[in-house]
């Protein structure tokens, strides 16, 4: 069971959250064209290692959080507010 350290609520169980996918992709501007939206919606790095992803604290403070998680060990290096920058560990 993942335990995610919400910057507002503290460490909470995975059960309070909903996963929201890759947080490294950014919604293109409205006029960016079809290819940009295709890349945004579909193509992924899918790293085996550190990953920046969205988690929604639905049964908590209802904030979307940026979580830096390792996809093999499930270690979490950082949990940030939606607007904050995160740093991804090397290796």
């Amino acid at each position, binding site marked *: 069971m993942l335990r995610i350290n919400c910057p507002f609520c503290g460490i909470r169980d995975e059960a309070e959250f909903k996963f929201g996918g890759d947080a490294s992709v950014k919604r293109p501007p409205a006029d960016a064209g079809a290819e940009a939206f295709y890349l945004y919606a579909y193509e992924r790095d899918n790293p085996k290692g550190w990953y920046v992803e*969205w988690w929604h604290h639905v049964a908590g403070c209802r904030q979307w959080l940026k979580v830096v998680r390792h996809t093999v*060990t499930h270690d979490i290096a950082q949990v940030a507010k939606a607007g904050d920058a995160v740093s991804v560990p090397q290796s």
Partner: protein
Amino acid sequence: MSQRNRLASGGRIDRSRTLKFTFDGHAFEGHPGDTLASALIANGERLVGRSFKYHRPRGIVTSGPEEPCALVQLRAGARQEPNTRATVAELFDGLVATSQNRWPSLAVDIASINSLVGRFLPAGFYYKTFMWPASFWEKVYEPLIRRAAGLGKAAMEPDPDEYETVHAHCDVLVVGSGAAGLAAARAAGAAGARVILAEQDFEMGGGLLLEPQHEAWRRSMLEALSAIPDVRLLPRTSVFGFYEHDVLGAIERVSDHLPVPPDHQVRQRRWTIRARQTVLATGATERPIAFPNNDRPGVMLASAAMTYARRFGVAAGERAIVFANNDGGYESAFALQDAGVAVAAIIDVRNKAKGADAARDRGIVVRLGSEVTNVHGGRSVSGATIRSRNGGGERTIDGDLLCVAGGWNPAVYLASHTRARLRWDGGLSAFLPGTPVQAERSAGTAAGVFGIARCAADGAKAGLEAASAAGFRDSKAFDLPAPDGGDADPKVEAFWEVKAKGKSFVDLQNDVTADDIRLAHREGYTHIEHAKRYTTHSMATDQGRTSGLLGSAVLAEARGETVQKVGMPTYRPYVTPVSWGGFAGREAGHHLAPVRRTPLHHWHIRNHGIFLETGLWLRPLYYSATRETGWDPILREARAVRQNVGICDVSTLGKIDIQGRDAGTFLDRLYTNTFSTLAVGKARYGLMLREDGMVFDDGTTSRLSETRYLMTTTTAKAAEVLAHMEFLHQTVWPELDVRTCTVTDQWAQMSVAGPKARLALQGCVEGLDLGNEAFPFMGVGDARIAGCPVRLYRVSFSGEMAYEVATPAGYGERVWEAILEAGKPQGIVPYGLEALGLLRIEKGHVAGPELNGQTTAKDLGFEKMMKKKGDFIGRVSAERPALVSPDRPRLVGIRAVDPSFEKRLRGGAHLVEKPDSKKSLGWATSITRSVELERWLGLAMIRQGPERIGQRLYATYPLKNEVVEVEICSPHHVDPENLRVRA
């Protein structure tokens, strides 16, 4: 004689009380403190089960949860429980146990013939045969195999007992209550940490339970622990898995030692433990050696025989032969001798042994450099053949108990779950936990430390370190036991298998022999994981707890490599198997998921609502006080709406309050259509897409003030829509001034629909002019009904003139009843989900079956709702070529050509050109019996649908061999001009 193997004294059983039990119908007695296994041994029962494949007679091998053979059917009736390890089942008065996997009886088991033909049934034989003729597999071979499958029998009735799950948090979790665990818990507790000490046994103490000289220390430790408020002791609790983020699962057998759970108490309780730090003081299990016929009842691990003598006060035999590759065997031999068991000989594979002299002093024959080459006896050991490993002849020794001391396997499984690599210890010839990767450390024998004093010291150190790592550094000293000198040298000679003729078992439960493992190797299944799967070694209910390493060693020899190179099959949860009930806890039967009730729920119950589960909600399908069946109540309700007026509970619709200066802009980007231009006091139908261009949700949104909107969503998507909005606002457009929250539960909402809806409402609404001019279609206004505040929305889902009346939930019933009362003259009736569906299908409104995530706005005929200017979610992706292809299925209406109702149209039918055509043009999404057109009709997604309006097609339903001719039409079967809603 009753309890003929019970020792006169000693042990931790209460001889002053007698418990009665039966095994295979025979009545026996035991004492409190016994396990079923110790009580069976006390009564001289040797043969307790049959093996899986060969049905060989099997006895009790261990004294703990690692037991591979003594599995019984415990209890009877609905509480019966297969594959229960007799070695952990606590004896209670009236216990009933039966042996399993035998027919007709344990003593005479027909299938034991398998053993005779065993040489034709090596590992994996089934992969090589049963292939010819092909048709025989289903009819002959597989039924045969399935008849042989399985061990125990499951109860077929539902379980009468209850279970629960509980959450726990601690600074330090200590697993195991031996010397190491007790000391660890004490050290951590004294430092101020919150401690949980979990012990699978019903008594705390582990190995200490065998050491009367340390009893005082054990008790003082337990007393001290009980006195620390933040220490929680959990006996009968097995920690079954170590999961990521330092969460561990444990199962507490709350009432398994009782005939039935007490009132208001559960049978088992499952713990989810979040531990800052964990100390694994899980001890070690002894392991066997492979030699011919090492599975005969009476072949037992030496430590188990010692445990039976010292802890349970029973002699596992009268005359013991001990076979050892380490000093542990001597300790057991002495313990047996002290208990009055004759020790025929110690057969030691080593040429030198520290204990040999002491043994000889005790009059025990010691044969160094020797091995056991065969075991005699059928259903019980009668003796063994031994020989010198340095050459020389074989000789036979009589004895009814063969104790095997093959070395120790430190219990590394929990550490292993964390992915900590195992480390080979040459001295112990065993794997130890390697460098931790989670917040855990192993202590005591689990970490390869032997001896009570040393284990206690190691535990204390681990407890302190764990507390310190959890932030508690205030250490307090306490007494540790002094070394008592009896500590045997744990060094083990790496001796695994006696090479002699006969079946030498490696995995006792699954009947895997050393030869099977060699066969796997010969056939190229040389990796340990391949060999495991090919032979099923380590895959039985004991998961290779005693013999896993033995299998690796046999394979290592075949490969010509070291055991550490070969490694062990991966350890996975569960350390010991966990009941399904314990896992489910309260979430069984009705409690699988909480019930979400509308504010009108109890009115529906009192008024004969027939409920349907929709998501977590319960919603009335229809109301029927009489014996109306099938379509009757539905048609009655729907007709009432079309002809007069009906009222329906629509409280389940999602409702989202949206406020802020940019609320309008925000909605413009969410919806395909525009909301910033909506007038205050008006509602508008909106359509939302996903970013991939598919329709996500729809509903009406009203503008309550310049800066405030109220959105309604479908019941199904309510939570998702709010999350979607929060995502967009928080991550994509944080600059917008908007705040959102759900108000779904705040409002009871009811749809009052029908040509007489206004009349009905006029009878109870106060403070709002319902006239068409004052309150036109899509109007929103506040009023009161029966003194309760209400908000009216003039929106319609049925196609009739309709009002949705919302009132704060607590007034729901009162308002509902007031409307029913007021509508009496108009013949108002409550209608349920079925009639609601019927009406919306007639009207051509889309719902779940059409909004299934596979349809675009264009598919549903909503292309006009996609604004041309400005950004909105899904705009770009919806224009991808295949999504705008004219060939996509699009929404149309279909109607049975024959109005007789005889030939039934059904949802899920496909549309084809000819009655027997196989080429599907589309499918029927929603079908109903129409009250307006008096025939079957519905909605369908059909390729080039709109172009086909007027054509005839066939709705085919091969699942029932039905074909119905239909006419393609507009989806708006009722009032296509939409006049009624504006009336």
